[in-house]
């Protein structure tokens, strides 16, 4: 394993530093018997070292498809994924192996993502062995012990020889994080990695991930539908809100969460059930014109959100799709906000 602590101010990103991972106009269209489903319809995103980019949105909005393209688990129909400025699709075998090393994926379900017949030692060391980073059993044990300690599975000795069924959901998810860390990644793509965990365990896992971000400078593409989690984990980073395959609002987390602009983001933020009975009764709710999400195969003309949008203006919203444009401190895709 390479030395991670060589550069202590590692975590401080320079503003001119190019993004580690960039998506440029990526689209993913699934060909189904019902017709073409544009799951992701042109998304531009960047993940920088030590920074968090959080994708939020409802199910079916294309968050996971975007993440899969970012990890090169699926090729985009058009557009490109750039790793350190190099298009992933054009990489040769050696470059691709380096990419696989540096971009790691943590899945949602720790019950399904670990092989039930492998011990923790075997799961976490698999990548290290495959890439020749460790030789022999003793070296593997030592490397895995170090990794388990980093994700707070201590004493690591107790966990090395356990099987997934002997551990709780939170412990399994930590093993999945340790496995991702074994490859010394520059970017971790976490797809709803905390949503299956109890609230009490969620916070400590988020804190573990936060340490990786701050101490090792790992960049995160963090996907969640939970705005409280997004706010906490990406407070110093950015949030991109997706709706039907497109980003509708993208900006620094505190601004997006505390002062949402796009009617969809406003609806999401106002719909959250707050853990405070007084707050719950007094908050203003954004009323949508319809509860139902349009079908991806039959998108409405104009803005995708207009059939549900409370600020809908006839004549512009239903004829032309609003582009994602800069508006003060963030990017917005809304005719009403960006024109008026």
């Amino acid at each position: 394993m390479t030395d991670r602590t060589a550069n202590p101010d590692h975590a401080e990103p320079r503003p001119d530093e190019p993004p580690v991972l960039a998506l440029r106009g990526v689209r993913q269209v699934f060909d189904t018997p019902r017709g073409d489903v544009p799951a992701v319809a042109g998304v531009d995103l960047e993940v920088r070292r030590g920074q968090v980019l959080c994708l939020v949105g409802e199910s079916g909005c294309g968050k996971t498809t975007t993440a899969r393209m970012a990890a090169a688990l699926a090729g985009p129909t058009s557009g490109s994924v750039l790793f350190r400025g190099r298009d992933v699709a054009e990489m040769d075998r050696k470059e691709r192996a380096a990419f696989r090393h540096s971009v790691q994926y943590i899945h949602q379900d720790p019950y399904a993502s670990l092989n039930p017949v492998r011990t923790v030692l075997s799961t976490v060391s698999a990548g290290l062995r495959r890439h020749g980073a460790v030789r022999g059993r003793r070296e593997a044990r030592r490397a895995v012990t170090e990794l388990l300690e980093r994700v707070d599975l201590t004493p690591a000795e107790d966990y090395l020889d356990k099987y997934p069924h002997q551990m709780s959901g939170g412990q399994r998810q930590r093993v999945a994080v340790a496995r991702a860390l074994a490859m010394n990644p520059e970017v971790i793509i976490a797809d709803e990695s905390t949503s299956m965990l109890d609230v009490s365990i969620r916070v400590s896992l988020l804190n573990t991930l936060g340490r990786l971000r701050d101490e090792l400078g790992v960049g995160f593409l963090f996907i969640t539908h939970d705005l409280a989690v997004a706010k906490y984990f990406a407070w110093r980073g950015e949030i991109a809100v997706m709706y039907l395959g497109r980003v509708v609002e993208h900006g620094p987390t505190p601004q997006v969460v505390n002062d949402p602009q796009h009617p969809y983001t406003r609806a999401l933020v106002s719909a959250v059930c707050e853990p405070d009975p007084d707050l719950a009764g007094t908050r203003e709710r954004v009323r949508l014109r319809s509860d139902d999400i349009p079908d991806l195969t039959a998108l409405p003309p104009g803005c995708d959100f207009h059939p549900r949008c409370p600020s809908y203006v006839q004549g512009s919203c239903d004829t032309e799709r609003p582009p994602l444009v800069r508006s003060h401190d963030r990017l917005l895709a809304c005719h009403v906000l960006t024109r008026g």
Partner: protein
Amino acid sequence: MSPVNDLPAAPDAPDGALLSVRGVDVGYRTGRRSRVTAVHDVSFDLYPGQSMALVGESGCGKTTLGLALLRLLPRTGVVSGGEILFRRKDGTRVDVRTLEKERLRRFRWNEAAMVFQGAMNAFNPVLRIEDHFLDTFRAHERVGGRRPRGEILERSARLLETVRLDPARVLGSFPHELSGGMRQRSLIALALALEPQLLILDEPTTALDILTQRSIVERLTELREELGFAMVFITHDLGLAAELADRVGTMYAGRLIETGTTRDIFHRPRHPYTSALINSVPPVAGDLHVPESLPGGPPGLNALPPGCSFAPRCAHAADACTVTRPELEVLEPRDAGLSHAAACLRSTDTELHAEGVFRD
């Protein structure tokens, strides 16, 4: 009517209570001679129209308790002690534990209905929504009182309208043709078909998107105002509890460890577990609030520590906590089951208040 099932108001069941749970234990058989107790000595009174949330981490026994209230436990589960007294629509009181088969069948849905977790699996995938309604109405008809199909469908359509669904679209559909939110709303409409006095909901909004959750919460609030049924809902989402409940019960390792009004629990928790649980979920509004983590996990049910089950994880445990198991003690007595009670040896400890463990 057999006298066993129709006790006159039992001495310790308060008159107005709809449901009086008295010292209920629930166990699961885990082997030929082994069993674990998943719910220990739970007691509470639920009054008509109240909405009570049961909260806690997974494995704390909240779903088991919810299922036990209607005797819907899997075959290995059994209510091994206590009483579940229910006041029926006709005013008579029954112990759900002793109801024999046919009476139990009639009791369910007519008096108390269940909305299961995961609307995905609660419907039969090969039956249309209208068939589910027909089945339900037919199964609970009086002998000889067979109603015509059209009349039942008309009633079903009205029910679906109460949850803001379009009956023309929904009735003829198969479950897979509906979205998660529509399925969940259909399920609530179906549960309300026979106008039960009590609705038990297991994780009613888990796995639904935020906006869909919001619409379910609003429908439930409206329906409860309109129809006046009582609710017990099981959730790990504290936000949902804050919003939908009048009162909250916290469960830990199979026991009810704190109960009180929603304000008691969220603003003045008196059990360190409840307050840790609340502090671990940050509100979305306002500045960054750093949530507290609650390390460790709940103890195994077959290896409960002596004394307070929470003591090994509790940052404020004193020596006595590992020896004496605290009982649920009333801190602020109130009527209608709304007393604030906590099972913590230090619940009135001024030192903990000073440390800010308990907010005032």
